[in-house]
């Protein structure tokens, strides 16, 4: 998934019009909560079906970049 599309997806989940970057801190947005976490998993499961996003990894993400790294090829697992 391209970086630009990924950032737009995160903005969509956070329901914000702000221009996000990879360095944007997630904690700036009160919408970054358990609901947006499951929206994130839902969207990524369709785009990156073989990536496993564990609750611990998701909780430790501080920035948009951290989220982007969660769906990196290195996290791909076989079925």
């Amino acid at each position, binding site marked *: 998934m391209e970086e630009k599309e990924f950032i737009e997806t995160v903005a969509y989940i956070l329901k914000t019009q702000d221009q996000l970057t990879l360095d944007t801190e997630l904690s700036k947005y009160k919408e970054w909560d358990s*609901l947006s976490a*499951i*929206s994130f*998993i839902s969207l990524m*499961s*369709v785009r990156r079906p073989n990536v496993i996003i564990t*609750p611990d990894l*998701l909780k430790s993400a501080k920035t948009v970049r951290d989220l982007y790294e969660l769906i990196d090829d290195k996290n791909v697992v076989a*079925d």
Partner: protein
Amino acid sequence: MLLQIENIGLDAITAVVSSKQVTLEDRLNGLVDADKLDRTKEIAGFDRFSVADAGVCASDFCAAAAEKIFDETSLDRNDIRALIFVSQTPDYIMPATAQTLQARLGLPRDIAAFDIGLGCSGFVNGLYVASSMLNAMHDGKILLLCGDTNTRNMFGDDISCQSVFGDGGAAAIVSKRDGQKIYFNLQTFGELADAIIRPRGGFRNPLIVENNALDVKENFVTMDGVTVMNFSVRYVPTNISALMNFAGVEPSSVELFLMHQANRLIVETIAARLALPKEKFPFRAGSIGNTSSASIPLILSEMRRLNEPTKLLTVMSGFGVGMSIASAFVDLRDTIILSTGEL
């Protein structure tokens, strides 16, 4: 485990919910702001819930559903040779609720009756057990009852539970049917048992009793929403694909995909993962809630109530607590579906 059971069909299915309803707004009042309330409604998809009145148990909804079938169809209770009650909220620690249901429903003594302790995967697992038993029986039918009073499992300020759970019960009659097969794909993921668990009150951990055990949050269900979401969107589509492949059925010829109504987003994501139109994946629990094992029959009874077609070729999939997944390819073209009843 992929398997097929021959000469089996469903005669009738219906479900019953509570006449008492509570809104999401009332439940989350004081727990979330207006913005989060709207987002919860949008993502989980529930705006009202069926809530059992004090003293009403899952078995009461199930008994009402069974009586509805005996009242409104020509199916005869004297033909029942086994009763299976699937629930995680039985009436008693012992005896099994199935025995009390046999007496309450006036079923013959010459039957087997037992409980199965399953939740969201319970209807399809129950159908598998009933189908297997019928193979060994000379005659007769099986009454499959399933349901839960989930609202009794959740603590007052637990937002994730309060956003989804409702109460209800369902009944189905399973019988021998020449030439008809049901295909199953059953899976168990016990390593994820902690994702949805009510750890106290059984024999492993006692209830914590201070002034009143009902005031202690640790005595109730905990649900890890992120793990449940991950599990559902990752493993359920794979399970369903394997089932359709095993049954030799093209996804395009399945007319209806009856997914456990965990929440709206999970149902829609499973459709998206399978690259199938979401219109074939009805979500009809928005004013009922997630009723665990009753949720698949409830989709059908709600569709019947709304005059939507139900006599179709279906794939059913129950998934969740356990964790477990049970899917089946079932022909409902000759099954009576009765619209949802109220208790």
